[in-house]
């Protein structure tokens, strides 16, 4: 009896050691490319070639960063911020609008409208690309950051409505009934009761969609052209053309584009992880 107990403990200890070793290997694989990026961003142009990629940089040299920041990095950054803020505000507001009747009203087309919106989740953006490209030219929005707002809002509507509708369904009916007795109409009900109560859902969605929009590539690449009108993910593209032989320089551009996310991660780690997994409820 004693013997088997000890054997089992032994076995479980060994499997823990193995599991921990595997976990550490997974950590190394996860962060190695990241460290490769940051480490080499501090190196000189030839330092990396002569000393190899694994050598630590000779000194913490910010020359690369200075050069990138003195280029038009800030204009990319600012463009991304403007597009993000405007699109996100519109998206959250109108998704909340739509989720309100879908979650709390009884009307004939409710199920149908909801199904159609949710079905849009698996549509590949590529099928909309050519017409939206033509549309932005016709409307003279092509090659401006304003061309991006419409697609950024529209593409994120389905998942947002899906998440917000299920969130609003969980708000207890009694609160609404109490407010109705107090003479609260349906429109006022939304602004003074439902919207404030949906705040946690909205903040999760803000993170999820914000990250998506911040990293969005294909519309930015297709609908804008000149340097001054492009967003941050495309900055790498431009710098790559400029410094194609200077790998450390590219690494510092990459590090700078990731920096906002890292800062967010350091200060709001739990929220970010939860927000980015919000898409998890899909399907």
């Amino acid at each position, binding site marked *: 009896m004693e013997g088997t107990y000890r054997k089992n403990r032994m076995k479980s200890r060994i499997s823990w050691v193995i599991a921990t070793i595997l976990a550490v290997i997974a950590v190394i694989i996860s962060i190695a490319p990241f460290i490769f990026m940051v480490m080499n961003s501090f190196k000189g142009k030839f330092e990396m070639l002569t000393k190899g990629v694994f050598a630590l940089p000779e000194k913490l040299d910010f020359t690369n960063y200075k050069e990138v920041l003195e280029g038009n990095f800030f204009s990319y950054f600012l463009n991304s911020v403007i597009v993000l803020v405007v699109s996100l505000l519109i998206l959250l507001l109108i998704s909340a609008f739509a989720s309100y009747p879908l979650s709390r009203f009884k009307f004939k087309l409710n199920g149908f409208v909801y199904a159609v919106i949710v079905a849009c989740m698996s549509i590949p953006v590529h099928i909309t690309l050519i017409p939206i490209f033509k549309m932005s030219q016709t409307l003279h929005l092509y090659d401006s950051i304003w061309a991006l707002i419409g697609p950024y809002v529209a593409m994120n509507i389905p998942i947002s409505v899906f998440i917000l509708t299920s969130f609003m369904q969980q708000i207890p009916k009694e609160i609404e009934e109490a407010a109705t007795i107090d003479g609260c109409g349906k429109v006022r009900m939304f602004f003074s009761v439902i919207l404030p109560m949906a705040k946690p859902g909205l903040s999760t969605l803000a993170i999820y969609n914000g990250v998506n929009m911040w990293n969005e590539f294909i519309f930015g690449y297709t609908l804008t052209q000149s340097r001054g009108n492009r967003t941050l993910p495309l900055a790498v593209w431009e710098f790559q053309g400029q410094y194609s032989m200077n790998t450390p320089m590219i690494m510092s551009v990459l590090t700078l584009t990731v920096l906002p996310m890292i800062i967010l991660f350091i200060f709001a780690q739990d929220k970010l992880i939860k927000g980015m997994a919000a898409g998890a409820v*899909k399907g």
Partner: protein
Amino acid sequence: MKKGESLLAQKRQKDTNRVAAIFLAPVVILLVIYIFYPILETFRVSGFDWNGISSNPKFIGLDNWAKLFQDEKFWTAFLNNIKVMILSILIQIPLGIAMATFVEFAGKKSTIFKILWFIPMLMSSVAIGFLFTYALATNGGIISSISQLLGGGNVDLLGNPKTALYAVIGVIAWQFTPFYMVYCVAGYTNVSEEVYEASVIDGANKRQYFWHIALPLLKPTIKSAAILSMVGSLKYFDLVYVMTGGGPGSSTELMATYMYKLSFAQFNMGYGSAVAGGMFILISLISLVTMRILNGKKEDY
């Protein structure tokens, strides 16, 4: 009296309908402009020979679609998508479950693992694409440097048509495995503490608990993870476009990269539209069938 009541109910319903319409209008209008109209327009344009610029495109009927059916490049791209899909599901989801299980069993002290594992998720696909073009570079990349340290030569993973797609799939796994880890961690929180305690009281060890209790309870989570991974793989674009542009040859070509290059590099927008349409139909069919199969066998716990 009764009549009055029903009139009142009717009026109330009318009121509800009106408010619903007003609240739904912005979303519906945007979806029509940016999703429904473009889908129809893409199918319309697929009937023309058009360079995207000329004002009188030539109507050619179903010629583009006939071409699509015989286009070896498109079907190669489709097969590549399927390979990415199958390997993504087989690599990312089991790894995600394993990592989540480790975090779940090791308790609080494993938080540091969760945080470090999450790091790839902080980067955009474009940034990852660029980073790995350099990390996998023949001269001075990570893999080449390791191989040289071990006495081997340079390794050219992305330049070799035989290995390029698998290198890309590896990078995709690097990027998305953390997502499925977080996803399964969330799945575990739905498996209640009491279930675990009850199974321990019944004498189950951790291994038995995992295989016989936790895993079956995680089934719905795994199912939707598989659907997500599937749809994502079929419309994959950013990273591949940045890293390989579909090459060498068409070894890493995907439906989306093929469509993009046809439309916006060769300005063959008529045929590009047909490819986009074909991609849309294939993705819709595959997701419909899969969801039918997965949801057909609904089980309750």
